[in-house]
């Protein structure tokens, strides 16, 4: 499987994720959230940042079901679901992820008919610290 190629701006996200915390970069001056992480606040141009913990609750904004040809590890689990989750605490922040039946489960572990735009989801983390999403009402 592909693992995140972490840069300086994104490193805190992955460090928190490894501890089971979903945190989003925020401006330490004007408090606006931003994603993906970057060095400077696009609202006030401050370089002071903090990482704000969010509830990890969200709704599916959209989703796709990739079919092969895909990279081998992904082809083996295809068709699987990639969801775009809009965070309840921060509606403009959307995270790409997988909808699964439990932490670390296969990417195709939720039946296709269970997925719909608007469904409520909750974050979980794989043992390697990758955020994943569970349906609140499976």
């Amino acid at each position, binding site marked *: *499987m*592909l*693992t*995140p*190629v*972490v*840069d300086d701006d*994104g490193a805190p996200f992955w460090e928190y994720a490894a501890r089971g915390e979903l945190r989003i970069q925020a401006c330490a001056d004007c408090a606006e959230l931003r*994603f*993906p992480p970057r060095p400077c606040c*696009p609202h006030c141009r401050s370089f002071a940042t903090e990482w704000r913990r969010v509830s990890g609750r969200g709704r599916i*904004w*959209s*989703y*796709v*079901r*990739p*079919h092969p*040809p*895909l*990279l081998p590890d*992904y082809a083996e*689990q295809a*068709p*699987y679901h*990639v969801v*775009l989750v809009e965070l309840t605490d921060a509606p*403009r*922040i*959307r*995270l*790409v*992820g*997988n909808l699964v039946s439990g932490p670390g489960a296969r*990417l195709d572990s939720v039946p296709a008919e269970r997925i719909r*735009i608007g469904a409520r989801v909750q974050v979980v983390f794989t043992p390697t610290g*990758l955020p994943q999403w569970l349906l609140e009402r499976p």
Partner: protein
Amino acid sequence: MAVLKDATAIVGIGQTPFAKQLPESERALACRAILAALDDAGIAPDEVDALASYTMEETDEVEVAKALGLGDLTFFSKVGYGGGGSCATVAHLAAAIATGQATVGVAWRSRKRGSGPRPWKNTTVQLPTPAQWTRPYGLLRPADEIAMLARRHMHEYGTTRDHLFNVALACRNRANQNPAAIMYERPLTREMYMNSRWISEPLCLFDNCLETDGALACVVVSAERARDCRRTPVYVHSAAQGLPAQHHGMVNYWNDDPLTGPAWTAARHLWKHADLTPDDIDVAQIYDAFTALIPLSLEGYGFCARGEGGAFTEGGALETGGRLPLNTSGGGLSEAYVHGFNLINEGVRQLRGTSTAQVPDAATCLVTAGEGVPTSALLLRN
């Protein structure tokens, strides 16, 4: 102040054959397409003093100038973001010529995509860091990235697979009229479309562009010089690039509104500097790496209101004789996928009156570059 409007014209177009596999190198194909375009214009290679292409173009201007015996170059430019750069190559040349930095410009794209590597397949190369937010989850290919927007558009506005089929069919029908197209003499039916395999639901095989080897080029000169060339000049009436605020590559999921992509930004500038409105456009060549880009672009360029891009395709609107004949050489879906450069050359043929699917008396054409990525567009007129 120098003005771009109608100050320059495209006076030559050239291309190689298109095929799944061509034996020659990208460099050789580039040279052939450029020589064909110069021959079409009746301009000698040593008169060329400006070049423009894509940052993804493997054959650089040094190689082209050396191989073709060009003269001294005083302007050269490369435009980023893959297919988003197509129209900007012409726009950069037009700006250079209109401001006196050069006199004869050539834009080109040469690509072996049919027989060459696909970037997402290479697992040995370290991914670009922005991909850390998408690729680990299996959002691997451009089709997956655009399918996410397509699904949302369907959910929010009732866009259907039949709407996407209308796009695929219009392109295929025009390719069936074009002997140079990969899909010449290969008709598409609704049954074929609906029964084809998925690539990334909701996008199926026929929602995706072709993998093609081939090269194209065009020649740009001043309007004054164009009057003495052997072909009817096709004027660059307006040109624009577009990179919206807070845009992010091909996954602009973090904007306030991901369904208003770069087309909207390019369109605002394009129409602002034009004497034309969308109602004045006779024929359109809209970037079609995926069918789902067409509804988004129809909305962005103002041919219909937000959310109506799917419904716009109904009733044969995109076919010959329809409200907006689309991609009349077959486009990326059915002629060739060469990062959209074939759309530029087809726009020129329409305004010369030499298309294989000629729109009667076509006098204006919109050509657009890749949507979803930082983009560009041209308004051409004769």
